[in-house]
């Protein structure tokens, strides 16, 4: 009952976190990688002596490839970003970089492919959100009193949006500090957070539903509060196990999935937080508003 008694505080905390994240996104901006913008990325590594960044830029300038962004990568490498280029152009870049330069990785994405990815990301996001609303509304259809089932779905979505905005805000911050970009894996991470975090919210709603059915408690508020008491260990335990494996991925996993795992960890954490400290308080507030309107 502690959580419900202090529901206003917890909802405000969530609102503050979300505002910070939105502020972070606006202030730091979201860096979109070449997966979405199109362009090319060439990663090279030098075996003995690594030239300075300006030497590299000077070497590539005569090739007239437009704007080039050269960034150091690790101790011995550079990443070179340009507009999307052909293989011949890539070979001329490699040629101008010297004999000791070895190509690690080359991606060239045409603008139409990038635009397609943007389209697909947006569509997938909408589909997942819709799918979840319908699923919750359906599975909670028999629990229409006192709060109708689709409102459960809506509240779940609100808590999901919270779960998605905060990691994105953190990504904007990471992008500002470390130069992390938004790529396909980020979109996958967000969609996975949607799926996983809603399953946690469902665990809580499920218990509320059962207690409503049994009719153990006098008021809706008490039902929600006591349900939370009953399930919070469970909810934390299930998220904890997923976070353990995600942390293993962050610290020991492949470099390409590191930020993917970080975003997922943040998402999972806030997913659990929102199921317990946001979704249930919101449910009670909605019910209170409804009762006030009736009276």
């Amino acid at each position: 009952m502690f959580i419900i008694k202090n529901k206003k505080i917890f909802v405000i905390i969530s609102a503050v976190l979300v505002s910070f994240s939105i502020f972070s996104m606006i202030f730091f901006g979201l860096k979109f990688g070449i997966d979405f913008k199109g362009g090319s990325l060439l990663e090279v590594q030098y075996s003995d002596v690594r030239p300075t960044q300006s030497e590299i830029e000077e070497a590539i300038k005569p090739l007239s490839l437009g704007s080039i962004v050269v960034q150091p990568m690790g101790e011995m490498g550079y990443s070179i970003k340009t507009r999307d280029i052909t293989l011949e152009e890539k070979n001329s870049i490699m040629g101008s970089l010297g004999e000791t330069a070895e190509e690690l990785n080359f991606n060239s994405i045409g603008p139409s492919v990038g635009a397609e990815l943007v389209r697909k990301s947006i569509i997938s996001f909408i589909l997942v959100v819709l799918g979840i609303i319908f699923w919750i509304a359906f599975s909670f259809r028999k629990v229409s009193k006192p709060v109708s089932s689709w409102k459960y779905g809506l509240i779940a979505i609100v808590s999901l949006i919270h779960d998605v905005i905060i990691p994105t805000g953190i990504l904007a911050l990471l992008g500002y500090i470390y130069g992390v970009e938004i790529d396909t894996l980020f979109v996958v991470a967000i969609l996975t957070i949607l799926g996983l975090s809603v399953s946690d919210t469902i665990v809580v709603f499920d218990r509320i539903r059962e207690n409503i059915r049994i009719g153990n408690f006098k008021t809706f508020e008490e039902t929600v509060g006591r349900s939370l008491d009953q399930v919070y260990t469970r909810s934390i335990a299930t998220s904890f196990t997923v976070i353990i494996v995600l942390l293993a991925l962050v610290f020991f996993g492949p470099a390409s999935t590191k930020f993917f795992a970080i975003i997922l960890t943040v998402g999972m954490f806030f997913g659990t937080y929102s199921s317990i400290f946001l979704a249930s308080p919101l449910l009670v507030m909605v019910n209170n508003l409804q009762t006030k309107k009736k009276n």
Partner: protein
Amino acid sequence: MLKTRIIALVILLLGVGVGFFVYKTEISSRNLAPGATATGWAKYPFRLGLDLSGGTHLVYKADVSGLDANQVKASMDSLRDNIERRVNIFGVSEPLIQIQNGGFSNAGEERLIVDLPGITDVAKAIDTIGKTPILEFRTENPIKDAPQEAKIDENGNLTIDPYASQFVKTELTGRYLDKATLNFDQKTGEAIVSLQFDDEGSKLFEKITSENIGKTVAIFLDGQPISVPTVNEKITGGQAVISGSFTPQEAKDLVQNLNFGALPVPITLISTETIGPILGVQATKAGVTAGIIGFLAIIIFLFLWYRLPGLIAVISLSIYAVIMLAIFKLLPVTLTAAGIAGFIISIGIAVDANVLIFERMKEELRKGDNVSDSIHHGFKRAWLSVRDSNISSIITAIILFWFGTPLIQGFALVFLIGVVISMISAISITRLFLYTLNFKKTTKFTNFFFGSGLSSAKVDIK
């Protein structure tokens, strides 16, 4: 009870068996000499995606503007088969060639995706794929002295097709070619190329020749006329000969190119990704390490927190992991770095189901049920939670799969299979093993071992 215990034992043995299968197949395929054919155990290695094996990912756009809407699918399929033949001769192991149909998300473009694991000489690969010849038969333009055609393409470049005013395209293209063979002209000893069309092609050819007797029919290769013979008579049977002062080598190359299949539609390369093998090996190692560490961490947590049921969860999880690995080998599922991440995450989710069940069991124990009843009720009541919470993950996985790029599909497939199998393993294997622990009496022993966390099972309800 005995029956339950026997079944549990059988499942345990099966689990060990599957584990053995995974182990043996992996060892055998690693010991395989390069180039040797795989037999027996070695036939089931783990399939690694490009980002783990290193290789090249190419995306082509197919120009279907010259086709009717209903011809598009057949042409794209034939294009796919063509490229596959080419790539196979090139000697790539397990290339992946897919069509992405034009649709809402593609902006209507027909795409061809070619994944070549292990190929680092990208230029050669693109050469081999891209240079399949486009064979066309064109007839004389009935409009004499027609003006030359000029086209402006999307980049603003002007191209003039010098032949369009003289010749008009027909329906007969390389799509209908059955076979090309190298021959030598009886009289002149020149190298010539004999063409044999398939049934439809033969009919088309018959029609074209019968309609153009006395006129020229030009044979175009890659947009250039290579032979402009005059038609003397209607030709049935679909045989034609191209003689165009070829050297024997030129003729031989042309025959080979034509036989690989003249491309039914022209293609342009719009995207390339190459991943060096070093990065790939690093990624694989890191993925496996993370997997093992994650698994160990979960085992420790389960033991410490849930004790005896925890042990059962660990056994059930191990069987789950081993089944997943076997499925990856048998389906097969191409593993990418994201796919390995998905597998590791699914292990976490598999634990979820067990945790839900145990927590429910604990509640029943607290209410005063004995061990056997609380197992029973715990399962019944927890199943709904398990099902509902996993369905949302399944919805997400299905939509992610539709999303399309091979990288994401790798993750989505692993995630989807993981969630489904984890549900099945939790409610069947875990339940079965728990039933074998059918203690009817509640003693201090059972209290400790069925308790969890810092408390023992019997807690007075406030």
